[in-house]
């Protein structure tokens, strides 16, 4: 497909959609699908057939619109008079209604009310803060397009950015645009994306020894890291399930910018739906000539393959991920050399997180200045968070960087249910920290989160109320890190075990103050000596709960002095003996 054909497809697709009086969007993301939402779509189709409206109403299975706690969700867009232009968000001639907790047996009633008043018992307001306080870039199409139809993606402007860079921009111009946008890695570390792209583009594949398997021509690679493994995090999953072509487009643009012809999407096997939809998307894009050789009639070729992660959290760490793609054990290796210089099979490799790549097409289309106008001075754009825990609205949100935690928890999240008090919010998954109430008005950006001892991480956000036992929280995450340690380096492999044991001792009331001291020493050591990010951040939940909720630890240890007094210190009892000596 060249630009002309792409535009033609988009136009005809839009026209076909304008013929429909109503559009029904049924969420078939993992959470709603688990609640039988595919049956709802079928029941709606059947009900429409029965009332003879099949031709006028479209039922679409879409990705996650975000408000998982109210699922299954069905959104209905209706034209009031004249025709509806889908995607025209502020179109006055359009009425939208959102139904929550929909069951297949509600289908008849929903269809009967299509042209009248909405079904009151199912309706949830679309103007609630959960929706109005968000700014959607990455998730703009999730819940609006059918992730299994490339035409849907093309209709909302998909692949325009790719063809734009291929036909109008040099690779360096693309890198400059990304650099100017201020986009930073959404995997959590916040490394400037443009800088990373520039490094890969400049890297010489012959600088390090390489061993690329036969049959692969490319000497540079682009990897999309979709090995989202943090407990309570499902941002990447929703993008992969709800808007997979966006990731392919972002990867292709990145590949063009850095000079790669082969890409890999590394997805955990626990995301079967994401894998299925990505596979479908790759097939469709290849058929449309938007992936493969000679994309859009240009000389640029780019292929994408999927690699499945076999359930190791550490494989989200870039060097372990590459080892896994190469077919080895997923264990990290020391950096430098960084993947940008010597990565997959020794070749320069660009590794970006799903959300990072999903930001690329709109930056290309709308410009770096537009993107840089959102967010804070150092953290540009938006961030997707998976809001979970003891908060009224759980689900997926996308907010501008710099929003306060209070806005997220109390406005978007609807506050703490059950009349309980807010206690802490845990950001950044097992590598993150717990942030207490005193920092609720702090802006959410990379630097601020780090300052209070947490991290942005990939976007997990777990809200805790005053019934939460913070030591148990620390123990939960420590157990996770212990189970997920790859075992290569000693501090992480053996240190997490000992930290977990001490936390267990504390929980069982068998610990002394000395144990807390040993725990803190271990936290410091494991943090500074571990080989990779998993180990380096494993102590974070302990460090941050000790920092802000130390009294909970103190309460649990009895007053007894722990064992051992160190030799040579003032505590040592040798002084007591001097009375006996000459």
């Amino acid at each position, binding site marked *: 497909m060249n630009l002309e054909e792409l535009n033609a497809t988009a136009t005809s697709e839009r026209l076909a959609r304008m013929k429909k009086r109503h559009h029904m969007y049924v969420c078939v993301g993992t959470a709603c699908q688990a609640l039988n939402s595919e049956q709802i779509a079928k029941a709606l189709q059947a009900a429409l057939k029965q009332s003879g409206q099949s031709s006028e109403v479209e039922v679409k299975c879409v990705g996650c619109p975000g408000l998982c706690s109210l699922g299954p969700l069905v959104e209905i867009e209706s034209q009031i008079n004249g025709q509806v232009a889908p995607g025209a968000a502020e179109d006055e001639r359009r009425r939208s209604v959102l139904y929550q907790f929909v069951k297949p047996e509600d289908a008849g009633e929903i269809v009967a009310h299509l042209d009248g008043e909405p079904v009151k018992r199912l309706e949830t307001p679309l103007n609630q803060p959960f929706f109005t306080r968000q700014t959607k870039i990455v998730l703009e199409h999730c819940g609006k397009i059918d992730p299994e139809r490339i035409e849907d993606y093309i209709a909302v402007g998909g692949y325009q950015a790719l063809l734009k860079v291929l036909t109008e921009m040099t690779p360096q111009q693309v890198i400059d645009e990304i650099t100017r946008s201020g986009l930073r890695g959404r995997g959590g570390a916040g490394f400037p994306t443009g800088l990373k792209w520039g490094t890969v583009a400049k890297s010489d594949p012959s600088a390090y020894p390489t061993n690329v398997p036969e049959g692969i021509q490319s000497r540079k690679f682009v990897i999309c890291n979709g090995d989202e493994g943090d407990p309570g995090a499902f941002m990447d999953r929703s993008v992969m399930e709800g808007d997979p072509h966006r990731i392919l487009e972002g990867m292709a643009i990145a590949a063009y910018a850095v000079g790669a012809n082969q890409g890999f999407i590394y997805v955990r096997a626990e995301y079967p739906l994401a894998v299925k939809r990505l596979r479908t998307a790759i097939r469709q894009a290849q058929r449309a000539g938007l992936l493969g050789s000679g994309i859009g009639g240009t000389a640029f070729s780019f292929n994408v393959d999927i690699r499945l992660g076999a359930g190791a959290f550490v494989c989200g760490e870039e060097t372990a991920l590459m080892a896994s793609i190469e077919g080895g054990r997923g264990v990290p290796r020391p950096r430098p050399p960084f993947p940008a210089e010597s990565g997959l099979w020794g070749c320069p490799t660009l590794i970006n997180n799903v959300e990072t790549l999903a930001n690329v097409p709109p930056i290309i289309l709308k410009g770096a200045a537009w993107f840089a106008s959102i967010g804070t001075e150092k953290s540009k754009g938006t961030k997707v968070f998976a809001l979970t825990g003891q908060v009224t609205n759980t689900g997926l949100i996308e907010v501008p960087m710099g929003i306060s935690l209070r806005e997220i928890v109390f406005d978007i999240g609807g506050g703490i249910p059950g009349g309980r008090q807010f206690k802490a919010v845990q950001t950044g998954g097992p590598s993150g920290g717990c942030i207490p109430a005193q920092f609720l008005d702090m802006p959410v950006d990379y630097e601020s989160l780090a300052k209070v001892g947490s991290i942005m991480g990939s976007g997990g956000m777990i809200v805790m109320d005053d019934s939460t036992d913070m030591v148990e929280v620390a123990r939960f995450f420590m157990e996770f890190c212990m189970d997920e340690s790859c075992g290569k380096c000693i501090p992480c492999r053996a240190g997490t075990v000992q930290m977990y044991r001490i936390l267990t001792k504390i929980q069982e009331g068998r610990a002394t103050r000395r144990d807390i001291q040993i725990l803190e020493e271990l936290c410091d050591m494991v943090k500074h000596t571990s080989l990779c990010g998993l180990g380096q951040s494993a102590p974070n939940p302990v460090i941050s709960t000790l920092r802000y909720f130390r009294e909970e630890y103190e309460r649990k240890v009895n007053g007894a*002095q*722990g*064992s*051992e*007094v160190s*030799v*040579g210190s003032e505590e*040592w*009892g*040798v*002084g*007591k*003996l*001097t*009375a*006996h*000596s*000459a």
Partner: protein
Amino acid sequence: MGKLRFASVWMGGCSGCHMSFLDLDEWLFDLAEAVEVVYSPVADIKTFPENVDVTLVEGAIANQDHLELIHTIRKNSRLVVSFGDCAVTGNVTAMRNPLGGADVVLDRAYQDAQLLRPQVPHDDGIVPPLIDRVLPVHAVIPVDLYIPGCPPPAKRIRAVLQALIEGKPPEMIGREMLKFG
């Protein structure tokens, strides 16, 4: 100048550390000048006394009696010294730990490994019951000083005692003082 009140105890170990202690040979005379032995396997004293200055503990904590005695020792001693690898690490005494609890170990020793009349001895008050997990001394009570070695060589023991008699902390540095095994 008063003499140091000195005790040594034999718990879950082979007595090799005490044998090594006796290898101090003629220096034992000098030691006898400096300390008063108030409790020891080599002295006929039934109860652990009070106001002990230095107690050397040989062996790991392996049974109920050890457990009770070690707390008494801590209470009555100014300085508790883990004496030898079993006290410091659990060592050979603790090699039963991976097998599981006390019952598993007793079954192995008195049932599986016996050809004639296999039976686990049960006579309360005669044999102290084993605890499920053998522990080094510092896992049960605070310990002030450690002398590794299986057994600690006599020279090492002497260096430590010499320092204690002089009222200064011994220098536990280097192969001479620190090698386990």
